[in-house]
């Protein structure tokens, strides 16, 4: 019985959670991510009643665009579910245990073991609500599937789990939004996301994270498995979070699978962002393309580490990874670390990483056309991100991201002016 299977999994995960110490992620150089300041004991999985209408904050972000389905989880409870395309299965993971036990049993945790660390174990042990997506074989959905994780009260712990299965030759757009208003106090989002794109499937996936100015700790693992001749385009966007540690992994698991992974981050104030991504090729004739771009203001810290891993036998795989980080403040610190493990021959894999600042020649050039220094700086940063924003290929979401970047740049204008002024 699937319910038993989940109960057993929760129990085993609880043991791991209790045994494991609070994690600390270290990297060469100055980088350490730790969660010592998180008062885990003071957080609780807050429950909420279902909602008849969407919270304002959610509406602002998802816009008026029609969707194939929408699910909102607030704190520990799924409070809103709406499916407009009946071919789609979108429900809480709790209900999916009853309604789609075989699928849940087959895929839950398939690529996401509960024993990888304390927070992964916590999510596996304590998840409530949850999101379950199933796009059946041969079903093509034009409108997006939207999932929202909302944290609107401090002292909340949200143990989040999304399980998405896109059947053979299924096609969909899947959007996850992580949102919180600016509150005083701590909160936790410990997330698990798994997507299985079965043979021939085409998935356009985006994550939009903006946890606001509260002390939200986001410790998540997101994993995507791509089957034979299937394709996933994944665009994670990080626009706010007090402390974020995420692992984002893509596995091209069978021949002919293809992934395109494009990420963006913008950190400010005292934010701390730690991203670790892997592009793992488990089969031959697979292709990958990873581009990440970030910008940092204030005293923020952002580290991006990207690994390409080509396992033995995955011949004729072709992939590359690029990461760029732009410092817009003298006190911000950024890392961009690409790395490579290639365990077979006859493949092509390349990678590159840069950490830079705004280019004074570009600023001068724009100013000679009558554009002010601050306008030039804004346009250059927006232009820098534009390549990534366009890869969203979703006008509503693109506009949202552009608007948020513009807001952040306006907020940082004085310090950036000072910074680039100092250097000229």
């Amino acid at each position, binding site marked *: 019985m699937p319910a038993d299977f989940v109960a057993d999994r929760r129990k085993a995960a609880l043991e791991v959670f209790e045994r494991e110490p609070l994690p600390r992620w270290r990297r060469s150089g100055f980088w350490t991510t730790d969660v010592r300041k998180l008062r885990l004991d003071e957080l609780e999985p807050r429950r909420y009643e279902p909602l008849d209408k969407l919270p304002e904050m959610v509406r602002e972000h998802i816009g008026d665009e029609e969707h194939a389905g929408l699910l909102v989880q607030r704190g520990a409870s799924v409070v809103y579910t709406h499916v407009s395309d009946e071919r789609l299965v979108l429900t809480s993971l709790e209900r999916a245990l009853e309604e789609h036990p075989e699928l849940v049993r087959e895929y839950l945790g398939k690529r996401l073991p509960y024993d990888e660390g304390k927070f992964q174990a916590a999510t596996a042990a304590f998840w409530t609500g949850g999101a379950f997506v199933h796009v059946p074989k041969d079903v093509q959905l034009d409108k997006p599937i939207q999932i929202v994780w909302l944290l609107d009260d401090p002292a909340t712990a949200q143990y989040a789990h999304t399980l998405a299965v896109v059947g053979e030759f299924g096609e969909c757009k899947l959007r996850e939004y992580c949102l919180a208003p600016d509150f005083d106090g701590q909160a936790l989002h410990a997330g698990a996301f798994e997507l299985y794109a079965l043979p021939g499937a085409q998935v356009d996936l985006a994550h939009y994270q903006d946890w606001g100015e509260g002390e939200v700790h986001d410790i998540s693992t997101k994993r995507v498995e791509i089957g034979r001749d299937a394709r996933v385009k994944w665009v994670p966007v990080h626009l706010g979070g007090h402390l974020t540690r995420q692992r984002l992994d893509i596995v091209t698991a069978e021949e002919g699978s293809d992934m395109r992974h494009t990420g963006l981050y913008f950190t400010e104030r005292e934010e701390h962002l730690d991203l670790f991504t892997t592009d793992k090729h488990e089969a031959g004739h697979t292709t990958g393309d990873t581009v990440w771009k970030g910008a940092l203001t204030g005293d923020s810290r952002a580290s991006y580490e990207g690994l390409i891993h080509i396992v033995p036998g995955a011949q004729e795989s072709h992939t590359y990874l690029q990461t760029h980080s732009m410092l817009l403040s003298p006190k911000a610190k950024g890392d961009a670390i690409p790395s490579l493990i290639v365990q077979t021959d006859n493949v092509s894999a390349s990678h590159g990483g840069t950490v830079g600042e705004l280019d004074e020649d*570009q600023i001068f*050039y724009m*100013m*000679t*056309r009558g*554009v002010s220094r601050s306008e030039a700086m804004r346009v250059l940063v927006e232009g820098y991100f534009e390549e990534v924003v366009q890869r969203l290929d979703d006008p509503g979401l693109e506009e949202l991201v552009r608007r948020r970047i513009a807001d952040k740049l306006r907020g940082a204008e004085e310090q950036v002016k000072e910074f680039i002024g100092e250097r000229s």
Partner: protein
Amino acid sequence: MSLEIQNLHVRTEEREILHGVDLVVKKAETHALMGPNGSGKSTLANTLMGSPSYEITEGRILLNGEELNEADPDARARAGLFMAFQYPATIPGVSVANFLRMAVNAGREEPIKVKEFGQLLGKHMELLRIDRDFTSRYLNEGFSGGEKKRAEILQLAMLQPEFAVLDETDSGLDIDALRIVAEGVNAMRVPERGFLIITHYTRILNYVRPDFVHIMLDGRIVREGDSALAGELEEKGYEWVREEVTA
């Protein structure tokens, strides 16, 4: 109306490059500034625009009587000064059309109307024989040498400055591209505008005939004359000037 350079001394962090340059460009005039590589021509152009890489230690730059020495580059542009760059910067993520609109609007109180902008752009692109799809490309990203120079002249045409400095706009152009660029410049030679054309070669001056020619050597203007001087230089080369000066 004039662009006036008085006893201009300019240095970089390492050394002084211009050792007292005097030059006056009045409106309706076209001046050519010629000189071998490293003579200080580009330093002069970049200093006129207020490049942060150069420091004025003595002398003045005046535009219509107003001193520009301390003005930021954007203020100089809004005052009517323009430079076509020898090596224009790439602006990723910003299309030619959006860049031009931003630049045009920077010099106006009210933003230009979409239709008016479109007509103006169409007209100038036709003059410079630039394809329509050019405007949706990111400015200078992946542009050939000729495309970059044409994009510079297109900006000149759209911004309609009082004084335009062309910093080696002719270099790196094949003869067809040079002719198109020269035609564009000639179309913009109107009584309300002055030009300072900086070049290493006399080639462009066969198409854009200057009223005055100045020859720069080692950070000083050493010879001045009318367009005949360019012909003489073509014939005898920069070594001749150097020998004359040191003699």
